[in-house]
């Protein structure tokens, strides 16, 4: 068995622009996707995630570099010769065929015997909970059901890799959440490698074993969801995934994995953690997640403790979202409402001044620009 289900080696895809120039939609991407992994390509529109997926599927060919499926270089192989299948964003169901015919289509192309087609289609339709719908037309199905047909149609071929191009984008929020969990458990059940394209960070965090965050054709970071969220490697990823506060500063001293950073705007020094070595004087950006800042009534024995003015507090049920002023710098602070009370003061509604306390491991030191 090859080491990777899919491997991209220095892949570039260039498209002409309407202005007559050229743009690298995918810009020197290296990527290794392990067997049986649920891998997500995450990024905003135009970041190259769909182009990357389409090059694995064979709808596009790399301008340079090579796509490997298993250990086979794909070169300019057309899609119908690749052992991968795609679930399309638009589902792309054949409206002139029944559900059964749609799912059977791929097997017919492989010249599978009728009995085998019948049993495999039956099995996969059961797996996606569409048994009994065999004779319906796709038109007669709801959006969620059509999505399942698209999934069944691709899965029935038992591809080595299943490619999913924002398959949940057209569903409403509730159904989407359901399908996320279902897809994840389905993937565990069948053990097929899934490559999932999405612009929805929550979706990617929920489902993936590993995520590649993409921007402007490049992969900014590979990592497990917890790694991507807790230890982003650059300002872009920290900003793209979840919410955060940024403070710009200069390295004052470093050692033992912690870095002391002088932040001129708050006229103070903060201690944080870093993934890489910094020299004294390096420009850096501090990223502090709003839920990791604690509001306290009295200053604590902590390396990062500041007096702030509470400017705004919005009660949203589970949390109270505050905006505090630290020496003129606005910080987002999310406090969990872990006590049930009708007293608004408990949620800092009335407080004017308070202390914030931030543990050093909650301050991430990222390279500055």
């Amino acid at each position, binding site marked *: 068995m090859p080491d990777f289900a899919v491997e991209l080696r220095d892949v570039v895809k260039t498209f002409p622009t309407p202005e007559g120039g050229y743009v690298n939609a995918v810009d020197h991407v290296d990527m290794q996707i392990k067997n049986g992994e649920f891998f997500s390509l995450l990024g905003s529109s135009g970041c190259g995630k769909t182009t990357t997926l389409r090059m694995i*599927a064979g709808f596009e060919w790399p301008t340079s570099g090579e796509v490997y499926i298993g250990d086979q270089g794909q070169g300019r192989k*057309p899609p119908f010769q690749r052992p991968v299948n*795609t679930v399309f*964003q638009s589902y*792309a169901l054949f*409206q002139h065929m029944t559900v059964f015919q749609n799912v059977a289509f791929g097997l017919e*192309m492989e010249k599978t015997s009728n009995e085998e087609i019948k049993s495999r289609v039956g099995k996969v339709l059961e797996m996606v909970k569409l048994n009994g719908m065999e004779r319906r037309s796709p038109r007669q199905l709801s959006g969620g059901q059509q999505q399942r047909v698209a999934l069944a149609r691709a899965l029935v*071929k038992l591809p080595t890799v299943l490619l999913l191009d924002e398959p949940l984008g057209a569903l409403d929020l509730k159904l989407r959440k359901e399908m996320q969990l279902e897809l994840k458990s389905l993937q565990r059940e069948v053990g097929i490698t899934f490559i999932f394209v999405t612009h929805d960070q929550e979706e990617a965090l929920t489902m993936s074993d590993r995520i590649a965050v993409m921007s402007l054709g490049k992969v900014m970071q590979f990592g497990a969801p917890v790694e991507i969220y807790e230890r982003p490697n650059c300002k872009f990823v920290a900003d793209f995934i979840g919410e955060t506060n940024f403070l710009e500063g200069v390295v004052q001293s470093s050692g033992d994995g912690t870095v002391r950073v002088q932040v001129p705007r708050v006229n103070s020094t903060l201690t944080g953690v870093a993934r890489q070595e910094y020299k004294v004087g390096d420009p850096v950006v501090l990223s502090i997640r709003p839920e990791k800042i604690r509001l306290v009534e009295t200053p604590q024995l902590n390396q990062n403790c500041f007096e702030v003015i509470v400017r705004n507090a919005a009660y949203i049920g589970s949390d109270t979202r505050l905006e505090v002023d630290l020496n003129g710098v606005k910080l987002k602070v999310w406090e969990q409402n872990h006590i049930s009370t009708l007293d608004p003061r408990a949620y800092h509604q009335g407080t004017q001044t308070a202390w914030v306390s931030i543990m050093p491991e909650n301050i991430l030191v990222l390279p500055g620009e």
Partner: protein
Amino acid sequence: MLQKLRENQNIQGLILILPTLLFMVGLLIIPLILTTVVSFGRRSADGGVIYTFTLDNYARLFGYSTTCTNGAASCFDPLYVDITVRSFWLALETTVLVILLAYPLAYFIARSTPKRRTTFLFMVLVPLWTNFVIRVYAWMMILRTQGVLNGLLGAFAGLFHIPFTPFDMLYTPGAVLVGMVYEFLPFMILPIYTSLEKIDNSLYEAAADLGANPLRTIFRVTLPLSMPGVVAGTILVFIPVMGTFIVSDILGGQKVMLVGNLIQRQFLDARDPTFGSAASLILMVMTLIVTYFYTRKFGFGEEIIAV
């Protein structure tokens, strides 16, 4: 009164369709009734109509003849049956040929970039700016014995020192077929293009993704999904070809007589409006029957408009 009109949507609707309604009643329903009445009449000596009830005209059309060469009182004369069968056959040939020519072209146009599509569609429509009859005459210039095509063939043969005698192409069933195919091609290209253009590119990708090579994609996905266009085109081509007489008149001369020519001659040359009316009705009924069975099987191609 005005208030009442504002409130009553039925009256409003009636007023809106009134011009069309008058047009249809005056120029379709009444003439159709007149034609039916006349078809059961008898021709008078001066080419007028004696209104009576006789089935003679229909009997003649179906081969009943009283002028027999063997001296019998009545016999079977296949003349008119032959004409009808020939018309039907020619319409069928034309339609099939037009589909075969139009489909690849429509596919090509539908798969081009949007900018080029406009240019190609424009080119399909340009010939329609010239009058139908003039275009048929142009084909006469091309096909006649001393015409363009024979001239080109002769020049080509001359290049290779092959002896060449010009073909007699004009006034043959083949010439009529060529003319028909040419005249009706745009009416097939446009509806097929419309239905092909609606097929989302992701469907072709899905077919390829599931293992279908381009040929199988065409037969399993493209063709079935564009059938509404083929059906609509067939209706637009088959029905007019069944009744047309200009192409056969100009390119077929006396040799290729179709139902359309037969009807035209009964009214203009033979001065027998009763027989002409009967032939018209038979043509109409035949076309209706064919269309009925065809549309029952394939629909009207209404998805072209509906989707």
